[in-house]
């Protein structure tokens, strides 16, 4: 094996490694060398990578502070090679508010799952957006509590079987799946709200574009940018990664359609 193939130095991009190989891709320097702990096929890894690619490409690694949640991405700070804070469950956007208010010229993002952002942290979520905090709120919606073993989430679908809805989620008992991104659009503080996917290459490209926009708006101090990613949970859903893609497309997306929910009015 040619060790050079595994060069991770971004400066080598596009150079001829030897006679037969040109290096066309590398892990961005904004990711550490710690291997992801995520289950095979989980969307978190892709979102982490896309987010860190965007930060590398925008050249804002030194100016970005991230806030990690409680949930599967609780260790996000081990992988993201930027300054980060680990928040209590549900409180990432309040912590991000604290960071942004004292460092108003830095880029700040929070990264949360559905239980964190749309159940226990609902008040913080709504009021952070209502204040129009100049941060990016990244919301990973896979309709389940992955870290704790696959319990029902606020975004679990009607009929969805989880460890705490073993007979399927019933609206009469526990309410309907909450469409928090749609709700947040009502708030003037929300500048840009979009829903994206990462289970196909086109979706990944679009997420990347959305994140770049969000950081640009943050630079212009436009208000809160909220990017939801409809993702999967092979372990929690008890499916193979391939089956989860079908489930996203057939079940999740009709409830949580992809696309911009609120775009800047000009």
């Amino acid at each position, binding site marked *: 094996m040619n060790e050079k193939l595994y060069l991770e130095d971004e400066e080598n991009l596009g150079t001829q490694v030897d006679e037969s190989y040109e290096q066309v891709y590398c892990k961005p320097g904004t990711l*550490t060398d710690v291997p992801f702990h995520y289950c095979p096929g989980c969307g978190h890894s892709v979102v982490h990578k896309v987010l860190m690619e965007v930060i590398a490409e925008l050249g804002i*690694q*030194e*100016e*970005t*502070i991230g*806030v*990690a949640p409680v949930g599967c991405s*609780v*260790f996000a*700070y081990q992988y*993201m*090679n*930027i*300054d*980060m*804070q*680990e*928040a*209590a469950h549900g*409180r990432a956007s*309040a*912590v*991000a*508010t*604290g*960071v*942004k*208010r*004292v*460092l108003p010229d*830095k880029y700040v993002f929070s990264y949360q799952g559905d239980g964190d952002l749309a159940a226990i942290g609902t*008040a*913080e979520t*709504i*009021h952070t957006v209502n204040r129009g905090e100049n941060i990016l709120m990244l919301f990973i919606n896979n309709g389940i509590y992955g870290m704790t073993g696959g319990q029902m989430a606020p975004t679990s679908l009607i009929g969805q079987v989880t460890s705490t809805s073993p007979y399927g989620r019933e609206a009469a008992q526990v309410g309907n799946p909450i469409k928090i991104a749609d709700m947040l659009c009502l708030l003037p503080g929300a500048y840009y709200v979009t829903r994206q996917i990462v289970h196909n290459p086109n979706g990944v490209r679009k997420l990347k574009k959305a994140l770049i926009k969000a950081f640009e708006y943050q630079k212009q101090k436009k208000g809160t940018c909220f990017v939801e990613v409809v993702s999967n949970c092979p372990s929690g859903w008890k499916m193979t990664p391939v089956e989860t893609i079908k489930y996203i497309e057939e079940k999740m997306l009709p409830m949580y359609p992809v696309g911009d929910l609120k775009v800047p009015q000009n």
Partner: protein
Amino acid sequence: MEKKEKRTGEAKLMKGNEAFAEAAIRADIDAYFGYPITPQSEVLEYLEREIPNRHGLVLQAESEVASINMVYGAAGAGARVMTSSSSPGISLMQEGISYIAAAQLPCLIANVVRGGPGLGTIQPSQGDYFQATKGGGHGDYHLIVLAPSSVQEMADFVFDGFRLAEKYRNPVMILSDGALGQMMEKVILPEEGSLPKTTPAWATTGKTKNREHNVITSLFIQPEEMEQVNLRLQEKYKAIQSEVRYEEIQTDDAEILLVAFGLSSRICQKTVDLAREKGIKVGLLRPITLYPYPYARLNELSSQVEFMLTVEMNAGQMVEDVRLAVEGKVPVHFIGRMGGMILSPEDILHKLESVHESHNAVNV
């Protein structure tokens, strides 16, 4: 650690809460996050009125839960930051306080205590002594706790609090009460800008090329690592013991010792005078730091006095620490009132005399 601030200007007549808030601006806070609750709302009101015309930042959050997490974020980003609330609001903050203690973030939290439990009353109390000094939230941690007994100390302890918080990377709590917050007294305020400030190297201010990324966290999932983190915290708490502070009034020849903190100690001063007029040699020890606690000094005094009487506005909380301190060498009695009621100097004198008589009866 006692280090008096330089003070300028005339003495002013101020409410405790307002003196506290003004001292915060003079201590050059970067941010205050808070939520209204009686009897401490004047802190937020004062800062909302003053800060826009001076320096720093004030934000009314959606809840105490949000305030304390904003404090976490701002402290983690290297800012000098504080919040304040009253008992029910402080209970809501306990999760965040535990995280702040674990992540070793310096900050100042003021509890203007009201009567509880539950929604309780808005009248003064010392019912949060256990919560403040023994942890309050989950896990093995301690706050440094300062107990002011005057409006002057409400202002001074902001400076002392930040000095300790930043020295030890530990949250500091100022434990006052509804009366100290609301009452007006003469105060000479600390001088603006006299508390130096640096951005700590561990803060999340943006990763520069010449250092590893900074991470603020309280998560250490491997038990071996978590144990080490705990051991380091315990080492720190041991070092903090050197910061113990207390005030003694007429203890030199005292045969009976009153022990009281905060507002109760003010009342006890009058009791000391009343008792001495009657020829009873009474002294007073007032712990100024409730954590660390003056165990050693109380133990020393136990060889001198006939008994101790602990006076609190609660059901008897600090009295447990007094008993721990004297190790059974002398009897430790207690008198207190709860629910926002305040003892009079005469109430304490009566108790003192009746205990004194019963002791003499036993000795005969």
